[in-house]
């Protein structure tokens, strides 16, 4: 009678390797290219790739997410609490050839004539919201002199369905600042 497995050690090693490869793959999918959105002395700088620019010019709605959190280090990991967020939907109005920014807390859109102006507004608005977030928490005396973090990224999951798989795979769509620490007195 043939048995299914007679070499568990070898097969177990194969299983471990496969799981490790899968974990690496998942991590690579989730990780962002932090170079596309960077911080400098003047604030956030968002550089759209050609694909992203073409997409927005073709009428694809892009959603930028800014997220804020209070960072706590637990052993070797950062534990984010007090999460808050803000969304910017960027779309192009073909008839007027303008770029519209819809924010999650506003009805009327902001109108810009170029993507550069649009991105500048988004960076300013996200930083402004971060300042408010810090001020709010400091006002509540919750986390004085604590470390706050924010990140701004392009949401791939809110892209049109056919584009998501490509966006997950292609690095051109990796627009993410990554979690960056800001002391409360920096802003």
């Amino acid at each position, binding site marked *: *009678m043939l048995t299914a497995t007679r070499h568990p050690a070898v097969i177990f090693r194969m299983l471990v390797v496969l799981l490790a490869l899968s974990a690496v793959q998942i991590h690579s999918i989730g990780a962002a290219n932090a170079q596309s959105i960077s911080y400098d002395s003047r604030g956030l700088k968002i550089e759209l790739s050609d694909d992203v620019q073409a997409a927005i010019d073709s009428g694809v709605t892009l959603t930028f997410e800014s997220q804020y959190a209070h960072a706590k280090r637990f052993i070797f990991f950062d534990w984010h609490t007090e999460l808050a967020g803000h969304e910017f939907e960027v779309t192009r109005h073909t008839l007027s050839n303008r770029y519209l920014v819809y924010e999650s807390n506003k009805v*009327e859109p902001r109108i810009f004539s170029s993507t550069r102006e649009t991105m500048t507004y988004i960076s300013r608005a996200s930083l402004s919201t971060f300042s408010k977030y810090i001020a709010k928490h400091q006002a509540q005396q919750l986390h004085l002199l604590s470390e706050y973090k924010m990140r701004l990224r392009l949401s791939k999951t809110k892209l049109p369905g056919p584009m998501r798989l490509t966006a997950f795979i292609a690095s051109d769509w990796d627009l993410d600042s990554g979690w960056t620490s800001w002391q409360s007195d920096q802003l």
Partner: protein
Amino acid sequence: MAIRSIIKKISSPLPVITVCTGLLFALSYLIVRSLSDDASGELQFWIAIIGSLGIATLIFFLASNGYTLLSQYRRNEIGSILTAKMVVIFFFLTMIPFSLIYFFSIQFLNKGVDSWFDVRIEQTVKDSLLLSQSALEGIKEEVISDVERIAINIRQSQNKPANELLGMIRELRAINGFTELSLYTDDGRVLAFSSSDQTNILPNTPGDEVFSELRLNQTYTLLEPISPTMQQFRVVVPIAGNQLGREFYGLQAIKLLPLRYATLASSVETASNQYAQMVFARGPLKFSLIVTLSLISLASLLFSILTAVYLSRRLVAPISNLALGTQKIAEGNYGSHLPVTSSDELGILTKSFNNMSSKISEAQQIALASQTETEQQKGYLEAVLTNLSSGVFSFDGEARLQICNSAASEILGLEQETLLSKTADTLCQPDHHAKQFFELINAGIKSKQNNWQDELTLLGAHGRQMLIVRGTVLRLNNDLFEANTQAIKPIENYVIVFDDVTNLIQAQRDAAWGEVARRLAHEIKNPLTPIQLSAERIKLKLYDHVDGELQETLERSTRTIVQQVESMKEMVNAFSSYAQPVRAKLATLDLNQLVRDVVELHSSHRHQVEIKLELNDNVPNIKANASALRQVLNNLVINASHALENTEQPMITISTQMAAKVTGNYIDLLVEDNGSGIPEDIRESLFDPYVSSKAKGSGLGLAIVKRIVEEHSGSVWAREGSNGGTAMHLRLPINAMKTYRGNRRQNSLHSSDIDPAQRTS
């Protein structure tokens, strides 16, 4: 063990089928959702991750099964080769249609997606957009014209008081249908403001970029979407400055696009955007669909191969079990039962195999029982044969000795190992003392007689032996041969039984002569004394009453009677002596010394006979009864002396030597005279009692010699001497047993040593 158990469990078909089913559902969901925008991107992401993990798991299952199969193949495990072949066959059967379907699916997908984008539709969308833009451009021009006309009016009325200017703006806004009309200074301050919404207390101030354009004396116009279905025109016109020092004023008019136009424009905008988005997403869509289709195909292919592996194992398992069972039976492990897992032909085959195995096992048990019984019978037969006093030989159909019991070996003085497995012809060839015996057996076997019997005298290891040999042919039917050839050919075996009857004959002879002696003593010896006494009494009573010749006659007759009675007593005593068996103890004896003693005794009163001794000093001592052998020598010397009475130069030669062909076992003692020899008429019965060539001989001398020699397990015969007389030849064993018959294995004597022509007994 835990890892082995876990891997064994997860590699079983049920988890694999579960994983495959879930994977196919997930990938199908993924490909469906790839076509729509309303799905949750997070869910889609995790479905893709789960799909990849599922495929990795399938690859793991396939790799583990493939590795296991390869290992089994390398170890030449039963069933692995057939399983591998079936997997390969299933693989190709799957791969060929799968490849075709996959190829055509990719082609169809590409063509299908491309077919969505028709050139005419694209042109129509563009034309619609251009039309909308043209229409809006016309409206925009009208609005601009209206605003510029109002700007001229306001420029002409800029010197009016503020309240009048405000009233004029309100009036112009209302007349022209603007949503809002406002007047700004060059630094952006509001001079006048009118809105159709009474609740709106603040104007919709234009941005800095508007005033930048105004400074260039350019009119700013913008179509602004304020909601998905509402759009408005914002027109800002510069008004040249006046004496108040202002460079210019800005007149801003906001006018809602008429609802009908706004709806149509929004519809065109949406359609145009969607189409542009579709065109842009054509490549990613193809990529997504192809990747998803490839994942589904890969999952299906892996699932098919895994199914092929499991199916092959399931199909091959009964065959492997049958092969293992057959191998066990070939190795002699009967009675193994295989599990019957199905009711199909393989199940029937397995059941038949189990039945066959059971029957073979039963037959083996019967055969073992029969073999055990046969061995018991054989052991019993061997025990019987071992304890038999008769020698038993069994020859097979090729006259090859198969059975030789210990009695046979003991009687013949030959080792069993030297006899077994040899043919009767071969046994006749060696020049040993039993050659005559085996020649007799060989002749009996070749005679093909069912029963035969013969007697034989051998000079065996311990002396002369009388053997009675009986032969029987055993005819056995060979059933196997009969079954194969439909012809009956009996197998002939030969059983030879032989007995050493020397003791028996001697005992019978002893008993007969003992009886004769007893009768003689009773019937003859007893009356002799009264006869002698009566004769002496007659002499005593009558001697004084007669005289002369009568007295002399009485004296002579009485003396004669007494002498004859004494003679008869001596004869009866001699006969008793012959009849009485020798039971004296055997002791080491120097035969040469005994000969010298006897010769010295006779030389003293037999001066007329020359006694010549030719004694071999190398002759070893023998075990014998000295007095008995002394009597033998006396008898032989006396007989020789009597035979030399009429010889001119009488001479007796006594010699001892080792037996010529039986070195070390026998000693020959030769008493030879140069007399007249043995008369022809008594030559055959020379050693029988009462046979004598002498007138006064009792005829018991040589009989006693023969008897004593035979009591010593020796033999005696007479032949013609080298000088024409008689030669009495005695052959005595060196190690004669203490009793008459003992262990015959110690010595052997070739009967061929004795020249048959020289024998007389």
